[in-house]
């Protein structure tokens, strides 16, 4: 990240559309994910309308799957809220990493864009910002593409979910993992980054094993960030 980090980027319609289109291929995978969610939710006893409302308003796949584990004729509200928060706490970090670029936008627009922030669009836009380009279209346009894909997939899952018998045998559970890895490798590579990654991976694994469930992403990310703050990049 260099001094142009603070450069102001605006969002125009053309860029929004371009970001939307760039996330369409990933959106196809998200449709299949959503399909798996719709099917699993039906099996957990949720009705169709509720499933579509949940996917529309929550739009956070991993936490929605986690909620299904707690679903029954009664739902424990506080454990559910804590689980959803823990699984989605990575959004806090994504927001923090986006802030240097979003701070120049008017607050309404800034918070409006964050409504649809999600892993894939965040990763793509951070890469664009890192290259010194604007990632606004990827973040918002791409986020909208992924949001619509998630809703569409969940709805399809209600009706046609049984067509996919075993998403794992098709490798579909690996979509997000492979995407994240590709984004990480596509980023900056240096000895410093390698050290940061090692610390992030190591502390994530330790947290995964020894700390409460779902804490590993936040622990790993903060540990990597701390090393980055101590071992700073040379001035450009």
């Amino acid at each position, binding site marked *: *990240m260099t001094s142009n980090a603070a450069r102001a980027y605006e969002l125009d319609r053309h860029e929004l559309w371009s970001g939307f289109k760039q996330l369409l291929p*990933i959106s196809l995978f998200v449709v299949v994910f959503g399909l798996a969610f719709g099917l699993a939710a039906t099996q957990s006893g949720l009705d169709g309308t*509720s499933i579509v*409302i*949940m996917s529309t*308003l*929550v739009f*956070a796949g991993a*936490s929605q799957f986690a*909620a299904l584990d707690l679903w*029954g004729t*009664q*739902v*424990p*509200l506080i454990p*559910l809220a804590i689980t*959803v*928060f823990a699984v*989605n706490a990575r*959004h*806090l*970090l*994504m*927001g*923090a*990493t986006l*802030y*240097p670029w979003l*701070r120049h936008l008017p607050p309404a627009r800034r*918070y409006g864009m964050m409504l649809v922030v999600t892993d894939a669009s965040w990763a793509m836009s*951070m890469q664009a910002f*890192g290259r010194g380009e604007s990632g606004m279209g990827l973040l918002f346009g791409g986020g909208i593409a992924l949001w619509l894909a998630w809703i569409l997939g969940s709805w399809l899952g209600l009706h046609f979910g049984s067509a996919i018998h075993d998403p794992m*045998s*098709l*490798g579909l*559970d*690996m979509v*997000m*993992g*492979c*995407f*994240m*890895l590709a984004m990480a*490798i596509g980023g900056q590579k240096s000895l410093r*980054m390698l050290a*940061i*990654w090692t610390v992030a991976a*190591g502390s*994530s*694994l330790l947290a*995964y094993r020894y700390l409460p469930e779902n804490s590993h992403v*936040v*622990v790993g*990310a903060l*540990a*990597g*960030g*701390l090393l*980055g*703050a101590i071992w700073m990049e040379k001035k450009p």
Partner: protein
Amino acid sequence: MNIETSAIGTLVVILVMAVVTLATRWGGIFVMSFVPIGRRVQNFISAMSGSVLVALVAPLAVNGDSGARLALLATAATMLLLKKPLPAIAAGIVAAALFRQFF
């Protein structure tokens, strides 16, 4: 506190999930608006953005089945060779699917 999953109950549960998730989406930029962005904070943020990705993937690689590991390996190799994410992701998924088909 348990909520009955009647029509209204389910809606209440979904709304709680939505509000909690929205708080995570807004919380990060909200808190950062009180933090002066100096060089150290910028380094922290950029290191953290790569670390989020690594922290997500690491348990998959260590605790996943061989299909998962092979998928990540295929993605890493393709990404290093071609530097294009989509072929890299496709290679990973195909690797996992093929492995699980035969083993």
